[in-house]
């Protein structure tokens, strides 16, 4: 098979071709960003083997969804969620990745690309270096603490500012600046936005919409300073404040400059390619050198620059075809803008400047904070701005793009598609009325027809539609619309397929399944799956552990725990490590230990060659890096010294942290250590919907950090103050007061009843603070505190369950009968040696 551009160019290539070896075309790509990511997808899908690809990236990682940095910043997502191409993806396509290696020079004469670390020859080169943030040339701009907003490093710097509750100033009130501001504010920073113009996002919004946006941002605690020109950034060793031309000073621990971007063209300029504001490309994405192509934010096409992904994806598909020798022409389409800040719904498309011959139609609903403006010219819609209610954005955008004549619906146009057939109808009908060519996902250019086709071909879940069409897989703001298209296509079948189900195997919610287990008397996983109509044969990794928990919580005496439905840690009673070894954490009741226990731990560490012994954050000791086959032997040794499983791996009772309390401390009011040990001995071994941790402090100085635990007890002169539903992991939240009592026995009873109520009602994998937020603390109090009979019944049910589960799993699994199961079943390396 011949490739479109035979490799005849460089001397090296000529030498090789004299050997008559068919050689893959050498493609070098500079920049692993969103545009080149899409290009590589197209290329490797279409011609898996045609290219030998080398990919350089300045960032020390491959491609991720840059748009989604904002949800990462605000805490709605973590970085791992937004990686679009991981190591395995590149490896599977044989792409030679050189991440963390910025290219420093392109040698066009010899067709070689150089980074500081390596040089690579190319037959074809693609430049996809994106753009660089614009930096104001004011004094102080180089101070530590001044960041831009472009990549993961910037995002992490801003996250740190928010976590510490510091003052942050964002310079620039455009799309990026506002997403940065909202993200830092969501993390707890005090944020001020300084914007040069009279209203926010002036390029996308008119003043009225800009005003509504500013009001919404101020409501969430973000200060906005419009018409603010930055004069200097002040600070000695790092940034301390921002000084404006009008004399205002805003104090700042962090400054984010988000005033715009400029195409990253330096390499191209140095290589004497034709560069205007961006690298000049033709309709096939070719630069002034026929062997060099460019795409993404670094290019200029017919005088136009690009700053949103939709046209870049289009470029990627055009360039892929060009490289494969197919004719393709890039013709950019109108892109619409949305802001990814939860609670600020805005949409703008087209041109809405005031001009001769233009006419506005405006709709306002001050009560609901809604503003819509359509700009008409010659019976056509040329621009639209909407704030507050943007559901009809796609419809308006379609009218602009198609240059539709709107004479007939002029009077009701602004009310949206639902009104065009006369009476107002529901939103589904409006979506149903959209033509197949209506664009639904702006980022990926997916129109309604494509989604409908995918749904009709069997993609009946949002996940499946994302996979097949890519709709809603970039910035995610169109998710609701995609679901409406699905609903319009599937009708009632979609209502049934709504995401309320526990997982893909069933449409029943967690709550319904629990209820049915109880009312129908279902007592095994197969019984649940059969009676409730599971779609899959054996469930999945998401429903089986949940069902196993619900069943054992409901039928403690009859149900037998299903080990094979447990995640690895709970199945093996140890935490799996990244290399497949395990960690072992023995219980240290209330954080108290003895020389004899410490000796046994030290001996075990020696005997099994433990690479790390670590004191945990939970007042006990972790032996990390133990081989699976050693686990039962180590447990048996520890058991002999009286040590039992610490359940550091379970959705169950973890640690009870205590302080020294009255026994030694000059401030201690009660025996907090003793109470902690008593509670740990009572609660250990119980399975719960998620892990449960306690803290018991001897006085309000609270050295055991009781006020951020699932359950905390603070001892005071008059007794015990019990609070619940704290968090100190991915979220941080102070506990809420449950009850106070003078009696230690009553304190123990209240804690036990709370744990049992949680066990009986919470959805699997909800920590207590999530569950209490759903059911309300008042209801919890009514069951646990106020109604004494209900409290006693909870305690009794807990005790019944503990009659089965209050025992050491390590002792049970380290018997001579069990031990062999922890080793390989056969060893063929030994046979080979014979």
């Amino acid at each position, binding site marked *: 098979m011949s490739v479109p551009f035979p490799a005849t160019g460089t001397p090296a290539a000529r030498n090789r071709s004299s050997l008559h070896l068919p050689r893959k075309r050498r493609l070098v790509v500079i920049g692993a960003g969103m545009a080149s990511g899409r290009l590589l997808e197209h290329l490797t899908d279409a011609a898996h083997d045609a290219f030998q690809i080398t990919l350089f990236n300045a960032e020390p990682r491959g491609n991720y969804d840059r748009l989604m940095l904002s949800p990462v910043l605000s805490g709605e997502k973590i970085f791992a969620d937004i990686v679009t191409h991981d190591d*395995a993806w590149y490896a599977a396509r044989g792409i030679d990745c050189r991440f963390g290696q910025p290219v420093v020079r392109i040698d066009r004469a010899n067709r070689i690309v150089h980074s500081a670390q390596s040089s690579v020859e190319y037959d074809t080169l693609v430049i996809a270096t994106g753009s660089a943030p614009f930096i104001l040339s004011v004094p102080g701009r180089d101070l530590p603490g001044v960041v831009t907003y472009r990549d993961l490093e910037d995002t992490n710097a801003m996250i740190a500012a928010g976590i510490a509750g510091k003052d942050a100033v964002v310079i620039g009130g455009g799309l990026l600046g506002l997403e940065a501001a909202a993200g830092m504010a969501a993390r707890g920073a005090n944020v001020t936005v300084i914007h040069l113009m009279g209203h926010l996002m002036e390029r996308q919004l008119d003043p009225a919409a800009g005003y509504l946006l500013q009001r919404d941002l101020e409501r969430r605690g973000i200060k906005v300073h419009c018409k603010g020109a930055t004069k200097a950034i002040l600070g000695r060793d790092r940034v301390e404040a921002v000084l404006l031309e009008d004399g205002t000073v805003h104090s700042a621990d962090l400054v984010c400059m988000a005033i715009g971007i400029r195409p990253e063209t330096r390499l191209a300029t140095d290589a004497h390619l034709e560069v205007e504001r961006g690298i000049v490309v033709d309709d096939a994405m070719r630069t002034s050198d026929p062997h060099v192509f460019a795409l993404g934010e670094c290019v200029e096409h017919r005088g136009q620059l690009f700053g949103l992904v939709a046209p870049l994806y289009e470029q990627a598909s055009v360039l892929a075809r060009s490289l494969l020798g197919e004719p393709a022409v890039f013709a950019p389409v109108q892109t619409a803008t949305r802001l990814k800040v939860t609670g600020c719904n805005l949409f703008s498309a087209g041109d809405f400047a005031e001009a001769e011959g233009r006419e506005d139609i405006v709709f306002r609903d001050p009560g609901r904070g809604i503003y819509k403006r359509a700009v008409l010219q010659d019976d056509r819609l040329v621009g639209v701005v909407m704030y507050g209610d943007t559901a009809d954005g796609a419809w308006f955008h379609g009218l602009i793009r198609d240059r539709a004549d709107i004479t007939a619906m002029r009077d009701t146009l602004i009310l949206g598609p639902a009104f065009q057939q006369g009476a107002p109808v529901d939103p589904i009908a409006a979506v149903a009325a959209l033509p197949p060519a209506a664009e639904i996902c702006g980022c990926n250019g997916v129109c309604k027809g494509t989604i409908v086709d995918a749904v009709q071909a069997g993609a009946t879940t949002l996940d499946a539609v994302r996979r097949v069409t890519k709709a809603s897989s970039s910035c995610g703001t169109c998710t609701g619309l995609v679901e409406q298209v699905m609903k319009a296509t599937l009708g009632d079948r979609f209502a049934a397929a709504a995401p309320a189900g526990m997982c893909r195997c069933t449409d029943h919610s967690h709550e319904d399944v629990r209820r049915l287990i109880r009312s129908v008397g279902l007592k095994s996983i197969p019984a649940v799956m059969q009676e409730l109509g599971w779609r899959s044969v054996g469930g999945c990794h998401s429903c089986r552990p949940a069902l196993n928990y619900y069943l054992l919580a409901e039928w403690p005496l009859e149900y037998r725990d299903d080990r094979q439905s447990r995640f*690895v840690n709970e199945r093996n009673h140890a935490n799996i490590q990244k290399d497949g070894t395990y960690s072992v954490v023995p219980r240290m009741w209330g954080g108290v230990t003895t020389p004899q226990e410490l000796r046994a731990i030290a001996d075990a560490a020696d005997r099994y060659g433990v690479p790390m012994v670590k004191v945990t954050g939970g007042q006990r000791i972790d032996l990390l890096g133990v081989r699976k086959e050693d686990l039962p032997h180590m447990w048996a040794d520890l058991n002999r010294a009286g040590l039992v499983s610490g359940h550091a791996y379970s959705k169950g009772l973890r640690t009870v942290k205590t302080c020294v309390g009255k026994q030694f401390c000059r401030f201690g009011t009660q025996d907090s250590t003793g109470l902690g040990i008593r509670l740990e001995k009572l609660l250990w071994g119980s399975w719960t919907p998620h892990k449960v941790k306690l803290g018991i402090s001897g006085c309000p100085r609270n050295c055991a950090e009781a006020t951020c635990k699932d359950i905390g007890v603070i001892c005071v002169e008059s007794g015990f103050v019990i609070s619940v539903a704290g968090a100190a992991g991915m979220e941080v939240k102070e506990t809420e007061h449950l009850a106070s009592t003078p009696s230690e026995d009553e304190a123990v009873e209240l804690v036990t009843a709370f744990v049992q109520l949680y066990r009986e009602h919470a959805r699997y994998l909800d920590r207590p603070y999530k569950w209490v937020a759903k059911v309300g603390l008042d209801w919890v109090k009514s069951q646990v505190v106020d109604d004494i009979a209900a409290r006693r019944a909870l305690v009794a049910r807990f005790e019944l369950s503990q009659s089965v589960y209050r025992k050491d799993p390590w002792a049970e699994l380290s018997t001579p009968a069990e031990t062999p199961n922890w080793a390989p079943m056969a060893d063929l390396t030994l046979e080979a040696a014979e």
Partner: protein
Amino acid sequence: MTMFVDVGALDDIPRQGARVVRTREGCVAVFRTADDRVFALQDRCPHKGGPLSEGLVHGTSVTCPLHNWVFDMTSGQAQGADEGLVRTYPVRIQNGRIQVSADLIARSTAA
């Protein structure tokens, strides 16, 4: 023709579970499904090397214990949006005994 070698009894593996066979090529995970079929796969997830033998088995799929990638045991192919292939080996049940491809020894001796 594939030659087979005995590695143990079917009942050595719990239903919906797996056991490991050590070979010079690395560990091979032998899975048993709820309906007593067996599959042999390389015990290394293509994502970050997780031991698939410790994964949750459902139907003829297994979920990697480290980050939940799901593999079809019949083909070794990653499911859903993830991409990756785990090597599979011939395996069969004869009179309640599990046998894997003898290549796993041969290759080792050759090594």
